């Protein structure tokens, strides 16, 4: 699909462009770290081509998208430049003209399908609104058109969908409704602001395919905003790379992604984990640090009227991790991977099964921590530590870094001075300056905070480190640094690691063995290179097939 798109795209670009952006500069409110959200950005989107605006957080890509539609808040003034839609200068167009153009010539779809639809209007009414606002069709004609577009976005049972409220649909279905609303009047330009970021891998693949198909059929120009390079590889004709408001590089997809010019782009490409896994040496003789057997977690709630809701979050999960090795658990939302991690860390209590810890050192017996009472569990807690997903909520905002770090060891009787010494050593290990100790979390960026959390976890000298989506919230370049840090730590401290993620690329980078979970069960488990190279289970195969840009070789 990718190559054909490229060729087709190259041909169509010769016509007059749908969207032209020239020298766009948009300011930021004063007091920020820079004066412009976007500086002197220029690009074009031609008929029938998909242009991806890609960049990390703070790059200004969303701001550009919103400025085209005229949706910028007053706090972000357009200081310079022009925006031309099919040759018409809409830079300073009055709101009334912009409203006429919206949905008829240019449309936008957004990131969070959960919140982007009005919860108190039916889906059908929300699509109908577009028609009644911009056309003179009567009710029956509008209804026919609504049903047509709902069918075109491949939603089953259109009559029922049209009468449903958004909360009755799944995330993927809601995004299709958004697309339907955007394309019902066949605009020439579609702006898509991270439309698949909040969706599962398989759903994402479907939506991407839908957008590409619709776009191909109607000849719509698409401006696609994303931070995911796999997505770019999958659907883009041309790519523009942004960094902190500047356009760093632009060109056809293959050129930018495989042979980038700019140093920043090269660095980004080097940071994107590839999906190929080479065989890693696995020391089969290493002592077993964690052995999970038949782990079950069931949520059983009985309402007042006798209706019972039973959710099997984890069903009979079994695996083991040896010292110095990383086991990855991948799965989509609802697969139970986080449940398993939290059961092992005893943040929630397993319903059944055993979790055997240790037995590695001579003279030590393995302990089953699954059902231990709180008081008997305490001395064992230090052996399993966890790093969470959200770096902005993982540190108490009112405690200094030093206080956060020494909290753990002090609980177990270490004296404060000794704990501080250990803290300094660990800060060094995670490549943070010792001056961080006196600072508060809000003074650090996301990636730095995550490193602090890793250091805090290591203060306990654990045997097992759990990373629960620990890099999912980070930019791709920061993610690469933190992943490298995890590798280093594992090497140096001979840790066992349990790495939970939904991102296959991350898993392929860091895992020795891999378990794939779906609906609470482990459907496949084995050495990473074997699972990636030769997946056995149908679900695993489907999961890998859905990974965007999986065959793409990123350069840099």
């Amino acid at each position, binding site marked *: 699909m990718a190559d054909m798109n490229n060729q087709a795209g190259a041909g169509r670009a010769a016509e007059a462009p749908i969207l032209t952006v020239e020298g766009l500069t948009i300011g930021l409110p004063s007091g920020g*770290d820079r004066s412009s959200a976007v500086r002197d950005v220029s690009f074009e989107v031609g008929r029938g081509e998909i242009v991806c605006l890609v960049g990390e957080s703070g790059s200004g890509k969303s701001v550009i998208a919103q400025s085209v539609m005229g949706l910028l808040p007053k706090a972000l003034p357009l200081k310079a430049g022009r925006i031309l839609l099919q040759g018409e200068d809409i830079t300073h167009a009055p709101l009334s003209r912009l409203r006429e153009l919206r949905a008829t010539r240019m449309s936008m779809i957004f990131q969070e399908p959960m919140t982007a639809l009005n919860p108190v209007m039916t889906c059908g009414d929300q699509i109908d609104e577009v028609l009644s606002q911009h056309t003179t069709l009567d009710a029956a004609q509008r209804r026919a058109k609504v049903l047509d577009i709902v069918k075109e976005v491949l939603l089953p049972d259109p009559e029922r969908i049209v009468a449903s409220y958004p909360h009755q649909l799944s995330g993927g279905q809601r995004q299709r409704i958004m697309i339907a609303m955007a394309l019902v009047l066949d605009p020439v330009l579609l702006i898509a602001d991270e439309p698949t970021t909040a969706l599962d891998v398989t759903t994402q693949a479907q939506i991407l395919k839908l957008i590409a198909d619709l776009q191909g059929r109607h000849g719509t120009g698409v401006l696609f905003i994303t931070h995911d390079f796999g997505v770019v590889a999958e659907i883009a004709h041309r790519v523009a790379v942004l960094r*902190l408001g500047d356009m760093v590089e632009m060109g056809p997809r293959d050129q930018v992604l495989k042979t980038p010019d700019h140093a920043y782009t090269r660095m980004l490409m080097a940071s994107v984990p590839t999906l190929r896994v080479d065989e890693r040496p696995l020391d089969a003789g290493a002592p077993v640090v964690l052995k999970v057997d038949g782990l079950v977690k069931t949520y059983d709630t009985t309402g007042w009227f006798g209706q019972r809701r039973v959710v099997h979050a984890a069903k009979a999960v079994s695996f083991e991790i040896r010292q110095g090795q990383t086991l990855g658990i991948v799965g989509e939302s609802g697969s139970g991977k986080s449940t398993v991690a939290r059961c092992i860390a005893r943040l929630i209590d397993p319903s059944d099964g055993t979790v055997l810890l240790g037995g590695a050192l001579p003279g030590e017996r393995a302990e089953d921590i699954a059902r231990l009472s709180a008081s008997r569990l305490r001395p064992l807690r230090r052996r399993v530590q966890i790093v969470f997903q959200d770096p902005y*909520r993982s540190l108490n905002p009112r405690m200094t870094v030093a206080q956060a770090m020494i909290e753990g060891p002090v609980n177990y009787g270490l004296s404060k001075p000794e704990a501080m010494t250990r803290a300094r050593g660990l800060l060094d290990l995670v490549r943070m300056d010792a001056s961080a100790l006196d600072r508060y979390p809000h003074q650090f960026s996301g990636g*730095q905070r995550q490193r602090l959390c890793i250091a805090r976890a290591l203060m306990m000298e654990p045997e097992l480190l759990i990373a629960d989506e620990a890099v999912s919230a980070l930019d791709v370049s920061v993610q690469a640094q933190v992943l490298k840090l995890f590798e280093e730590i594992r090497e140096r401290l001979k840790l066992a690691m349990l790495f939970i993620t939904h991102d296959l690329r991350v898993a392929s980078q860091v895992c020795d063995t891999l378990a794939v979970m779906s609906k609470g069960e482990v459907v496949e488990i084995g050495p990473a290179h074997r699972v990636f190279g030769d997946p056995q289970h149908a679900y695993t195969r489907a999961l890998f097939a859905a990974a965007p840009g999986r065959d793409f070789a990123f350069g840099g």
Partner: protein
Amino acid sequence: MAGTTSSSGASGAPGLSGPAATPGMNAAEATVANYDALSVESATIVTQRSAWQRVRANLSVRIGGGVLALLVAISLLAPWLGTVDPTLFDPVSRDLLPGKVGEITTLEGETIKHRFLMGSDSFGRDIYSRVIYGTQVSLIVGLATAVVALAFGIVLGLCAGFFRWLDGPLMRVMDGLMAIPAILIAIALVAMWRGSLPTVIIAIAIPEIPRVTRLVRSLVLSIREEPYVEAAISLGTPTWKIMLRHILPNTVAPLVVQGTFICASGILTEAILSFLGVGLPPDIPTWGNVMAEGRPQFNQYPHNIFFPGIFLAVTVLAVNILGDGLRDTLDPKMAKRG
């Protein structure tokens, strides 16, 4: 070493400088150093004024706080502001209009000339003195009500948030308490226990407790879900320490805001109780009492009601404005709405 701290603004200038690797680093360190120079992260300077600075700068806080400070000063300096003992009266000087001069008999039996700045009431007492001294009572009642309500509310809220089995029944009781209109509870309690300063304070504080309990409980429940609390559990921190070091400090801001509103409400309620005749005994000069006594003469001598009324309104207004300002600066969720 390429240790990144937040003040690396210089290296973050757009228009990239060259790689930050220096000779002497090995390959891994060099790569990381390059990443640090080029990545978006290192270019972001984080500036944030401390909470205290934000609070001080807020206009509402300044105005409300300023007026309140003035009132506190007035209440402390009461004896020296040209007042006389507020219980003194002289039938000769009854119902004087504001500004008139009249006579007043002191405790020693002397009769002195005195200008009744705010007029006199039907007993011949100096309204100005009563209003100034009344400031003391109102501020004390307001503050004490807030302290009592917060104290009980925090304890109950923590219990409800931490002990699941206690949560249900406790919140039902709180719901029941909230269902009875606050004024009625206060009136009934004061009627039962006879009006004195401590009983009035408790009577006014009791209806405020459920709201604080609910607030604390919801704060506890939401903070418990935060990853940093889960991290503390993993680190082996015992429950009481989690409550003290992680949860409580993060509840201070909303509770301070709530406290100011309770203070305002307390001052108001005390005035209403006194006005209705079910509050503090009439010999204690409170604004409500002064107004209650001035009721029958309102048509001819409105000054009895207006002066204390204005003081009351200004005080409560000041506290409410202060509370608004504190809320805007301290409570980030509320502040979003400007």
